């Protein structure tokens, strides 16, 4: 099981909960696919057409940042996954 956490405004845009629980996926790529299936448009918002996560997003798996350049994407079974982007309000 993976729990994927999204920025609240993004989750709302795609009528998704801010924390999605997904069973039976063990890679992040699979997680994006499930997100897209459940909330059409969300997966496409997160990924480039070739499946790579968009460059302005940052990813934390198991509470640690996964450097963008790292490939392949880590296995994530049982993990908390945080998908974040910078915000500028102040």
């Amino acid at each position, binding site marked *: 099981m993976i729990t994927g956490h999204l920025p*609240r405004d993004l989750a709302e845009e795609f009528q998704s909960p801010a924390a999605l629980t997904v069973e039976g996926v063990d890679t992040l790529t699979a997680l994006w696919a499930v997100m897209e299936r459940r909330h059409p448009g969300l997966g496409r918002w997160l990924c480039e057409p070739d499946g790579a996560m968009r460059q302005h997003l940052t990813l934390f798996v198991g509470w640690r*940042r996964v450097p963008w350049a790292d490939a392949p994407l880590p296995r994530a079974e049982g993990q908390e996954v945080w998908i974040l982007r910078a915000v500028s*309000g102040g």
Partner: protein
Amino acid sequence: MSSTGEAAGTLSAPQVERYHRQIILPELGLAGQRDLLARRVLVVGAGALGSPAALYLAAAGVGTIGIADGDRVDVSNLHRQVLHGTGDVGRPKTASAKNRLAALNPGVRVVEHRQYLDRTNVLAVMAQYDVVVDGSDSFATRYLVNDAAVQLGKPLVSAAILRFEGQLLVFRPGAGCYRCVFPEPPPAGTVPNCAEAGVLGAVAGVVGSAQAVEALKLLAEVGEPAVGRLSLYDAWTGTWQQVRFHRDPTCAVCGDRPTITSLIDYDAWCGVPADSASEGAPEVSAEEAWRLHQSGVPLVDVRPLAEYRRGHVRGSVPVGPVADGSDLPASVAGAAAPLVVCVCLQGVRSAQAARRFSAAGQRAVSLQGGLLAWARAGLPWDSSSAGD
């Protein structure tokens, strides 16, 4: 404080009285208070976050507090920018802040930097301070302040808020920077700001106060500053979460081989449209762009090359982010290209680029919806490195 006179050293009796509840914290003590009184902190932005941060820093007795902001107080600021009052509407925020902080604690020196920080002034301003607290309200300023902090080797306490959420990050030289966590800002127009999406004022109180706490620990060199951690506050659920990060060796600014070694044009890099270019740009649908391309009109991709490589409209030419309209390469511009179609991922940056080209005399239109709309229309795209 029985031994006040001797132990207080340079602290006066009124100072000991004022800071007593803080001095009796054994972790801080008289020495810590003396340190705070000798320290200098810069607060960037006298807004929602800068307000509580500056108030607590002044109350705590940080000796010199710089406030950098070029804005004036607006009545719509008052629900969250608690440095300012109704009577301050229309005044420069730095002046209002100075009055408020002086009223709170006349024993600290408040320095007004009545200007927006930019690449021409940021180094000179920040160099005067020991710690920088960033509560600015734009991506351009955030990345500017970060890059300057790395250059100057200054600790930085950065925070941002939106709606019910807040982010807090603490950086010390050598232990990562804002770009290690967020290498790029979101494409302009894809993440709303507080003016567009709103913010609960008290969220700024929580997060800005947390900034003050982190800055005080850095200034007094006590406790465990939250260096290397991104703290996420969700006011909706009333929870804090923390995730960890390290210095990223590939970071453009603090990595092993930095590619950004001097300050850049942050507005252009963040895709901020120039004020005069805020009118809508002519847009064409994916199908129309396809027809234009078939008839010889160049498609120019205005995203960074790395983004282009991951996926782009077939036949498009990468020209990179367009800072001003004279950037069009000679191979594309000229008599052969009376018109160009600008392309990006979602159509936001391409619209800005088209406006800039048009302002420079190059006719340009923007692909509405960008590469995503193009791909949805079933038109061909590539992810090869054809742009090399």
